[in-house]
């Protein structure tokens, strides 16, 4: 699978072994089951698993509000989303999710220190100008932060670059000339930045490009197409 769906010119060929593995898993039902659990996208579900009932949650770049709608309904959180795209704000309004329109690159001014239990940023950090600033802001207004991002060191991306082309895949669906992503970093790079900013990574979760959860023992920097980190201060 993948070649046709992904289109474009990159990640053209999967190895025979990889394809056989995928077919075995498809038959066992795992591949189809995981991403559909509870109707939430697999990465959002992984984030939701970390949220405790009744928490105060801030979701940065909340998109259409799917995660917050789920968290409000299933975990009774007091949740707010921040989104700058008008159409996404309207989608949130339609589903009754609290949404505050704001440009994240301008920080989280106006929010009190430590007001939120958890500040989430799902697949948006790579599109931020002020990467360091927003990470610091997340841990200023929140006790814990959760950040998910595409891992540019995923082995298929490495292969793609070795073959001379920028990676295009489901986790990096854009071409180099139209991608909204402006920061290209890896799991290992992120670890280094956290050390620099005195941020502790409490926990990692990784997923391959089919949305399958990797084991904590796996080398996420090599095997994860998408990585999720739970962060805090010492």
């Amino acid at each position, binding site marked *: 699978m993948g070649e046709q769906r992904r289109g474009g010119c990159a990640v053209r060929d999967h190895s025979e072994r990889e394809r056989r593995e995928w077919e075995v898993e498809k038959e066992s039902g795992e591949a189809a089951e995981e991403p559909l659990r509870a109707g939430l996208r697999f990465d959002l579900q992984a984030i939701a698993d970390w949220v405790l009932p009744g928490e*105060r949650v801030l979701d940065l770049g909340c998109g259409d509000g799917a995660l917050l709608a789920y968290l409000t309904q299933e975990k009774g959180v*007091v949740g*707010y989303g921040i989104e700058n795209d*008008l159409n996404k*704000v*309207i989608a*949130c*309004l*339609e*589903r*009754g*999710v*609290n*949404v*505050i*329109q*704001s440009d994240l690159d301008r920080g989280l001014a*106006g*929010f*009190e220190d430590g*007001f939120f239990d958890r500040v989430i940023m799902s697949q948006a950090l790579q599109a931020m100008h002020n990467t360091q600033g927003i990470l610091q802001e997340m841990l200023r207004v929140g006790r814990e932060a959760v950040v998910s991002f595409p891992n540019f060191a995923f082995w298929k991306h490495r292969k793609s670059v070795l073959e001379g082309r920028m990676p295009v895949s489901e986790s990096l669906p854009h071409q180099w000339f139209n991608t909204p992503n402006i920061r290209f970093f890896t799991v290992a790079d992120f670890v280094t930045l956290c050390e620099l900013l005195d941020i502790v990574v409490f926990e990692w979760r990784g997923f391959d490009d089919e949305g399958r959860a990797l084991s904590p023992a796996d080398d996420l920097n090599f095997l994860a197409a998408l990585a999720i980190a739970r962060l805090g201060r010492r």
Partner: protein
Amino acid sequence: MVGRSVGVVTPQRMVFEEPLVLRSGAVLPRYELVYETYGELNAAKSNAVLVCHALSGSHHVAGYYADDPRNVGWWDNFVGPGKPLDTRKFFVIGVNNVGGCFGSTGPRSIDPTTGEPYGSRFPFVTVEDWVEAQARLADRLGIAEFAAVIGGSLGGMQALSWALQFPDRVRHVLAIATTPKLSAQNIAFNEVARQAIMSDPDFHGGDYYRYGVVPKRGLMLARMIGHITYLSDDAMAEKFGRTLKYGEVRFSYDVEFEIESYLRYQGEKFSRYFDANTYLLTTRALDYFDPAAEYGGDLAQAFARAEAEFFVLSFSTDWRFSPVRSREIVAALVHSEKRVSYLEIESRAGHDSFLLEHPHYHAAVRAYLNGVRV
């Protein structure tokens, strides 16, 4: 325009014989409110929406009068079948506030104790007093709870105040182009407007009715000042620029620039129908509004008792009540754990934007109100 007009409407009048005790301590022994309604109140009486007017607005929110078809409601683009505030779903009420000059008891009304117009003796009214009077109208109409209270500018202050004064009587608040309190600059503009009125020789200390005159020059000036604050610098530049009325300067103090012509026209038109005392009272109500004051300035604490869900909207070029002021409201609501959404609309029209038809603005209100259960 998306949607249809509500069509021909007829104002109604409600008489209140029970005294209204005002925040100032003064008492209105009896009063009348004129109002209009659009749409149908459902059997459960759960679909009522109150629209609160701003400085120059009235109960005539939408539609037109059979005998005066050109007199279209001030928010006709917003209220009607298929419009953002859809009268096929909601029963909408517009009411002229106490102290107004469109038929509700105000300074022009006869004071029963003297048999003369109230004039200077009309008591000061506040946003809270208006909300109290509106709640009594709701009582009489059998409306225990509003699905939503909506207002822009000063109307937005009333909407916010509803959530604080009657937490269990309003489910949603739409506060548009408003502020939690006036800034010193806002009050300064109001003061200049008031001085313009009060220094007019025809003002007679507020009792001009007695002399058969109105402080027309003062009211006109007040409106001209107001208009400057309703428009953005961009909008003024775009609409008028430095365009000369006669194509060349004439070295006179008559109208030379188009902007002067516009302001004079707006001021003159306004001074023909608006009451100067109502203008004074209303600007003071604006000045006094500050729900956080009794909580040591802590707006989040002031909102603590609210139970409504809020939708706050601002406009990018509004410098009278700028987006910063709306974000203060939003931050306070978040910090008191209230349900709130916020949107800043990109608009070039300044404070006036809230009255105009803007696709993003209307789409957002429509989306929010779609989610309001009745």
